[in-house]
């Protein structure tokens, strides 16, 4: 009786009808995936279609059906060779993919020209909370993997992280926002927040309006625009060999002290005091006017978020954080500071970073361009790794080191000069690779054999 049932089940699993149903549902599902990707982006397609229970179920059913049909045709004859090869090939491909998914690492590594980096950024996201009582030494309170895209927090279902002074609650999430930085005067001054300065630099060719905000009181914050730099913080006694202006907040006053340095002398060129709405001329060789548009002795930063239906290259995602009766927004891969009367907390939300265990230093980056144009024809990174030496990584010429393969993915360049700024590598570790290669080979042999045997088989039902 049991055997009879087993046979029936096997017949069903091995049936062509089931196979066609599986093939068609797979085709249908991934077609939806491509439409999602075109409307949103690759991440959305992955999270909503390709990495879902639906997809895994279909893949699982496919594997079961492939195995069942091979068991069903046992013992195999020569004419079964093509179908056995093709089906084993597909099973190996599926197996390899599972291995990659389970044990593989795939991330990106951005290395600025002349610098090094050993941290790989992977797609998973974490929330980290650090705390400090004195504002200098921080200890990690919590590190928690989150997936706000699939499981967005809400006021009803918040993500809570407890601290010494109440819980930090994530109560909202926006997938696609265009952020704009807003700086305001602190609502409750506590003496620990940094100052904020909005300045304007102007002459006949330049007009720059920007904010400089100190991360906390007495920090140095800088805005560098090439020929000169503006700082908010304590001025040094001597110049550092470039055109600079230091603005220093003064306790209890609503004006700023400023000191101007010129690149060819140590002594300050000029100094004085300036208030909101006032301007002065630094007196450099280039004629320029500096105006203080806004000044807050204690500034608070916030994001003005403009929500979008679908992602663009300018959008990012943001989560709402509630703490101590106040709410603020934190952007993906950004940090947020929360103050209480006793402690400071730093919250980060962003992509997980993996330590490669070795540093990749970008010595040089070379872009070949098509003659007479700015179109890149090829690009390569000249990198060095301690204990390994120097190597050149280019498109199609990856570097293999300590189980990782480092591929040239893309590069960032200065939009104005076209000079390359950083090289972006894709780094991965794929234990399933060889299984997939083997599966591909076996499946291709099977398909070619299929054609060969079809010519021989009379009725053409080798499968």
């Amino acid at each position: 009786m049991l055997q009879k049932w087993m046979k029936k089940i096997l017949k069903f699993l091995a049936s062509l009808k089931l196979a066609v149903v599986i093939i068609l549902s797979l085709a249908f599902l991934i077609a939806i995936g491509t439409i999602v990707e075109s409307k949103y982006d690759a991440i959305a397609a992955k999270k909503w279609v390709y990495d879902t229970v639906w997809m895994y179920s279909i893949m699982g059913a496919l594997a079961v059906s492939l195995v069942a049909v091979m068991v069903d045709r046992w013992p195999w004859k020569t004419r079964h060779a093509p179908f056995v090869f093709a089906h084993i090939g597909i099973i190996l491909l599926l197996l390899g993919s599972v291995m990659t998914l389970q044990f593989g690492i795939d991330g990106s590594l951005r290395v600025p020209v002349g610098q090094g980096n050993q941290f790989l950024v992977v797609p998973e996201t974490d929330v980290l909370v650090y705390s400090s009582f004195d504002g200098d030494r921080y200890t990690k309170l919590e590190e928690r993997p989150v997936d706000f895209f699939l499981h967005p927090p809400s006021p009803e279902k918040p993500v809570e992280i407890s601290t010494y002074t109440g819980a930090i609650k994530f109560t909202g999430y926006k997938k696609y926002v265009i952020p704009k930085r807003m700086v305001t005067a602190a609502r409750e001054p506590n003496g620990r927040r940094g100052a904020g300065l909005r300045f304007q630099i102007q002459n006949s060719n330049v007009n720059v309006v920007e904010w400089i905000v100190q991360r906390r009181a007495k920090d140095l914050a800088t805005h560098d625009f090439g020929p000169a730099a503006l700082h908010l913080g304590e001025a040094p006694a001597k110049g550092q060999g470039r055109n600079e202006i230091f603005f220093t907040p003064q306790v209890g006053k609503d004006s700023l002290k400023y000191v101007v340095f010129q690149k060819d002398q140590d002594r300050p060129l000029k100094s004085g005091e300036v208030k909101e709405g006032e301007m002065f001329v630094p007196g450099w060789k280039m004629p320029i006017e500096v105006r203080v548009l806004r000044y807050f002795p204690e500034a608070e930063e916030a994001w003005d978020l403009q929500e979008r239906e679908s992602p663009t290259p300018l959008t990012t995602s943001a989560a709402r954080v509630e703490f101590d009766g106040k709410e603020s927004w934190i952007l993906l891969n950004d940090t947020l500071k929360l103050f209480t009367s006793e402690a400071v907390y730093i919250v980060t939300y962003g992509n997980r970073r993996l330590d490669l265990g070795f540093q990749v230093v970008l010595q040089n980056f070379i872009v070949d361009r098509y003659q007479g144009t700015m179109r890149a024809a090829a690009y390569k990174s000249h990198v060095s790794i301690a204990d390994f030496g120097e190597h050149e990584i280019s498109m199609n010429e990856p570097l293999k080191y300590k189980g990782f393969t480092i591929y040239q993915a893309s590069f960032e360049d200065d939009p104005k000069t076209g000079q390359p700024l950083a090289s972006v590598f894709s780094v991965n570790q794929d234990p399933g690779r060889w299984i997939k290669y083997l599966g591909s080979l076996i499946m291709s042999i099977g398909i070619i054999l299929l054609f060969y045997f079809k010519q021989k088989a009379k009725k053409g039902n080798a499968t």
Partner: protein
Amino acid sequence: MKRLQLILVLLLSIMVFKGAFAAAGDELLKLPVQDAGRIKPYDTFSKEMLEIVHGKSKFEGRGAAEIVMTWMLSPQSWQTKKIFEVRNHEVLKALGLPAVERYFSGDEIFSSPQFGSLIQDLQSKRETKEKLTPYFQALQRLEDQLSVFREIAGGNMLRLIPPKEGTVWLSVVQFEGEQQTAFAVLTKSFIGYIGGVASHVSASELKQLASEMDSAVLAFREVARKNNPGLYSVDTKVNVEVFYNHFHPFRWAYIFYLLSSLVLLMVWSMNKITWMKAAWAFASVGFLLHTFGFVIRMYLMDRAPVTNMYETVVWMSWGALLFSAILEWIYKFRFILLAGTLGAMVSLIVADTAPAVLDPSLIPLEPVLRSNYWLTVHVMTITISYAAFFLAFVLGDIGLIYYIRGEEKHQDKIKAITTSVYRAMQIGVVFLAPGIILGGIWADYSWGRFWGWDPKETWALIALLGYLAVLHGRLGGWLKNFGMIASGVITFSLVIMAWYGVNFVLGAGLHSYGFGAGGVEYVSAFIAAHFLLVLYAWLVRKK
């Protein structure tokens, strides 16, 4: 048979005379120009520029070489000529121009008070980095048209002399000393020549003027060569390209495919089996020309020409003909070759007549695609599988016609067609599955991931799954003859989606280097018409 030989010889000689022999005045066409990352003959350059601005390679019956040169020599005389093609009605409405017209003069567009603000809108739209809607794409095209015209008129875009140092060639405004003089002589002889054409001087006088222009061009080339001989050794390629431009190998190929199809139709309808030889002969000549054109493109670009829609259409039709010839050779059903020649002819005609969608210009490759053995193999394998599916599609159409004409009378034909459709699909699967896998290997090798659900690769997989479902359905016995023939037609829509739809409809993903816009309405109508044909055949059969 003798008559056939005579016809062939006659046609070939017309072709060769028309295409291959240089006439007086042709030296200007062979003048090397640096543009868009490569050296091309002035002939190609001027055609491409006129196509950008005007959408055609001729204006008022005059050739591009002449038109583009006069933009530079007397831009003011072009201000009132209706040379800018604007097709988007929304853009025309925004500019306050009549929507019934298609061509406008520079004055009409510039004098529109809204023009400046529209270009500003476009700029701010671009800053948002969102996908451009058709309206903004049309605006962007207008901006390109104006800038091309202005740059040529200003002498900045025509780069004719290799630099002493670096790689950027000198444009007309940068000429100095004898370069300037030589160019002035060239333009003077050019004006003399077109003046001669306009005032209808006698043939011998015109020839005289033409050869004067030729020698001026040659003298200028010597001056240019002197500046940097190493960079100027481009003569053979430039000459071959001019020959290619004027010979139109693919046009001749489809003419021969047409002849072959006509003969085959006669064989088919009047049962004149002896004419099969003629059909084979025409198809072979067409195929040789097709191959020849393909080889020239390969020579000009130093790569296999399978990197944009135009090139894959040409390659795909080549494969369709090849497969049909092989299957015809084995089965001798006669309509297989007909399907091949008809299919190849239609594809080549479409490729030839829609340059806006299928861009025939020779464009240097993006970095990912450069000098990569795997890429070539993977793209060629996948597109050749589309050729087999295309053959199954055309065969399916022929089968549907038999069904409409009466199933009873044509039982044997229908059976034969079903077999052919089945075989063509098998060939397709045999190429498509390894092609997709090669794509995976290439992706793994280049950027470290075997499969990333990129829309282009995903749709190729969907097409494969579609055909696998059909083949398994046939094995299971659910698809009978009509089912197979209808599937041959319907399943091809998956190939169209994978091949055209991903680039032109979905427009997302890593394969974005092949993207373009246009023709969506025609392609949708094409697919819809075939679905209706299947439905109609089904209804006829039900009765």
